[in-house]
């Protein structure tokens, strides 16, 4: 048990190599800490992002059903064009070694392959079709007035906790 825990710590440290004993996926790569006022910019990006989610009806349970029934191109268009813009942006950032507005070099952690991406990915897919939401839209659905989705969110936090609790016993 103890040995396994240490092994996980070691792996996570290797993949991100920052100060805390264990690191999360996609860790914050900013070197200078941010004040609470500076954090407000993420609130603004979040608000804009949430508006897009609602206005394009991406948070709709019906859109997700259309997607999984292959009866509408809409969600494929959204995800496809988002990826295209994302690829283009990251290529430009890398090619021209663009820095952050604070002048730091931009760093993106690599994703390592694990069995979880297959098993966990499939499990998430089941939940995605049932709730009609991935984690982002859960927050936006609550915002639009479907407050009962807060229960879904709470259950998702619990699911995350249960994964963390048994992470060292699951195939990975």
């Amino acid at each position, binding site marked *: 048990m103890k040995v396994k825990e240490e092994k996980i710590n070691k792996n996570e440290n290797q993949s991100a190599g920052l100060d805390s004993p264990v690191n999360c996926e996609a860790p914050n790569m900013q070197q200078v800490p941010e004040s609470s006022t500076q954090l407000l910019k993420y609130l603004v990006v979040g608000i804009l992002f949430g508006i897009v989610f609602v206005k394009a009806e991406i948070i709709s349970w019906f859109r997700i059903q259309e997607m999984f029934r292959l009866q509408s191109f809409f969600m494929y268009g959204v995800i496809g064009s988002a990826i295209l813009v994302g690829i283009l942006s990251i290529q430009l950032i890398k090619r021209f070694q663009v820095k952050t507005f604070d002048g730091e070099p931009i760093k993106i952690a690599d994703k390592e392959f694990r069995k979880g991406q297959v098993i966990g990915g499939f499990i998430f897919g089941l939940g995605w079709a049932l*709730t009609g939401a991935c984690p982002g839209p859960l927050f936006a659905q609550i915002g639009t007035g479907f407050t009962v989705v807060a229960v879904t969110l709470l259950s998702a936090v619990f699911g995350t906790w249960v994964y963390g609790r048994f992470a060292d016993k699951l195939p990975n």
Partner: protein
Amino acid sequence: MDQFIEWIKQPWPWYVAGPLIGLTVPALLLLGNKSFGISSSLRHMCAACMPANIPFFTYNWKKEVWNLVFVLGILLGGVVASLWLSNPESIVVAESTQEDLRALGISDFRQLLPAEIFHWGNLLTMKGLFFFVIGGFLVGFGTRYAGGCTSGHAIMGISNLQWPSLVATIFFMLGGFAMTHFLLPLIMNWVGI
């Protein structure tokens, strides 16, 4: 101006929404060296509220607070959009999807979510158990096991040409197809509408 407001209130097409979502990737990188990802916020909530000495949750979550601020913004964005920018018309759902869903007992297509399922009255029923409790659990457990969700893997990961993210995305889709075509009919039959 009126015309602009009128246009804003219409549902936005995919070729507007998709690129805007894609732009979140460089926006977060440029603003503060942050990789786009949303399911990580659920992990930070666990780390902040009940780490319980579990190694998976004992990291410096305060360094990741930006992510919690970001998801709070998404919730507020939902409030803003529904209060001031909402479309008065019903959502347009593909005819074939409506037909399939009617066969399962879902027939209210006026709102973004089926009103028959997503209301508080269902909390303590079998519908609530499946659509809220089990559904939410699968989303939380699955995304963390996979190390990311649609944003972290499908958008951020694939944008950074990470093949494990492509694998994850393929299995997200397979899970969704399995639920929609095999399990959902059984569940709807069982919980009844």
